[in-house]
């Protein structure tokens, strides 16, 4: 992956490129083909690799290796935590607290449990800041609340949710907490034992590791029903011949991240400050969506709308004309029923025009300050062109 190819990439929250070290680790693992569960001599390299990989990921999360179970990604980790916590209650379904701004792999899992088994669900709406109010979580608690599932940082706005406070509320009542940590790991240092949540989901492709691998942090590993039953892999908690290549990649990514994340985070803050400063100078009416302060939102993410511009068209221009990739708050869809407006921005109460104008810019370790400058210049040019196109005399 050459740097110059990445200078226009502002979609790190969607996925990140593999770092060179990760590519090397993956390629090195390709010839280690033996089944890690075998007792042959051939298999020993794999067993050692798996063991070290688990330790590398544990170091990133500041937990013990026994608390890390590899999965096929963040979506599986989210499904696993929620279903394994609640399916055992399916004969006496209780109450779930979650939010309206979760990732689909949480939203749809909760919806499934609601529909198929009769769990009741409170979906908390965020404030205009993009954050859930802790007081609302407290108010939503019911005597039969069985799980609270809330994300650590939101993928569209970067806004950090009050997970510490939620864990405190829940622990006082013996309620389990699942935290979708996919968008925080790799952006901030985390300390999962200190957080105290029962389950935290991670995904490697958000921090320069491969797609198709992630992990679930499990506070008390003995108590978890598998999502994928079978052989003894992952300490008996998740069946399936181990995906050594992907795990090797994730482990390398975790190592790099452990040593670099503070530095990356500082760099993201610089990028964000520069981006916000430059956007404010543009001759357009720009509104930031959600809290932007780096104490309350991850530093690599900025979501904003430009009045009078359709983000779908702007993003297409940026992509096609300038080789710049961003995400948008609203995609085209074929009919009214399936309007593809961001459920996050909608939940924050933004009006339709603002959602249709919303761009998400997310940067990463390969983003340079000069790339931000180029981005703003191209954004200005494309926006001007689009505004001119639509200016009806």
């Amino acid at each position: 992956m050459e740097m110059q190819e990445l200078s226009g990439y502002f979609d790190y929250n969607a996925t990140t490129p593999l770092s060179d070290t990760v590519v090397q680790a993956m390629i090195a693992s390709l010839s280690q083909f033996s089944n890690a569960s075998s007792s042959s001599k051939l298999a020993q390299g794999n067993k050692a690799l798996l063991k070290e990989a688990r330790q590398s990921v544990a170091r990133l999360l500041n937990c013990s290796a026994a608390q890390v179970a590899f999965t096929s990604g963040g979506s599986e980790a989210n499904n696993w935590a929620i279903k394994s916590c609640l399916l055992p209650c399916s004969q006496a379904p209780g109450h779930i607290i979650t939010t309206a701004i979760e990732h689909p792999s949480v939203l749809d899992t909760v919806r499934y449990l609601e529909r198929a088994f009769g769990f009741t669900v409170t979906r908390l709406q965020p404030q205009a800041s993009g954050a859930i109010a802790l007081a609302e979580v407290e108010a939503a608690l019911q005597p039969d609340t069985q799980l609270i599932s809330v994300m650590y940082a939101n993928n569209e706005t970067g806004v950090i949710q009050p997970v510490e406070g939620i864990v405190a509320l829940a622990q006082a009542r013996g309620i389990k907490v699942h935290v979708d940590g996919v968008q925080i790991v790799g952006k901030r240092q985390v300390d999962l034992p200190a957080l105290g949540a029962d389950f935290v989901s991670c995904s490697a492709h958000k921090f320069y590791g491969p797609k198709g691998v992630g992990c679930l942090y499990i506070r008390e590993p003995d108590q978890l029903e598998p999502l994928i039953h079978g052989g003894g892999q992952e300490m008996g908690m998740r069946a399936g011949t181990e995906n050594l290549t992907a795990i090797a990649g994730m482990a390398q990514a975790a190592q790099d991240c452990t040593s670099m994340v503070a530095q990356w985070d500082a760099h993201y803050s610089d990028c964000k400050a520069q981006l916000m400063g430059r956007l404010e100078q543009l001759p357009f009416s720009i509104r930031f969506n959600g809290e932007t302060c780096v104490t309350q939102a991850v530093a690599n993410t900025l979501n904003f709308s430009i009045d009078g511009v359709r983000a779908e068209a702007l993003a297409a221009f940026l992509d096609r004309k300038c080789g710049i990739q961003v995400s948008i708050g609203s995609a085209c869809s074929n009919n009214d029923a399936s309007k593809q407006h961001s459920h996050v921005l909608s939940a924050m109460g933004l009006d339709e025009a603002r959602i249709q104008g919303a761009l998400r810019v997310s940067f990463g370790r390969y983003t340079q300050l000069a790339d931000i400058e180029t981005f703003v210049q191209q954004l200005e040019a494309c926006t001007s062109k689009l505004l001119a196109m639509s200016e009806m005399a």
Partner: protein
Amino acid sequence: MYSELIADHFMDPGFVGDVENPALEFEIGNSVCGDRIRVQAGVTDGTVSEIAYRAWGCATSVATGDIFCESVKNTALADIASRTPEQIEAMLGELEPSQHHCVHILTEMHQSLLAEAQTQGVI
């Protein structure tokens, strides 16, 4: 993802602008995605002699406006009226499912142009 046809017309539309003293003018809006397109045209001897549009919409609908304008420019209104739904759909090339609403937009542009021409008595 945009086909080359859509991308070309979106990136370098030839017909964005206004027509001075337009014989015909209409605006269509798509309730689904909120797209709005305004078309102005000049007509000479039953033929579209001048045409321009302005659009606020997604990339595909901006391209659709341009494809429409190009296709009717220097074309007799009678010929435009004889286009079948299949012909109209084919004008946009291959579309992804999420872009199909532009077929409706294009159809509506044809209908509105002809209705407006009738109203203005130029057909």
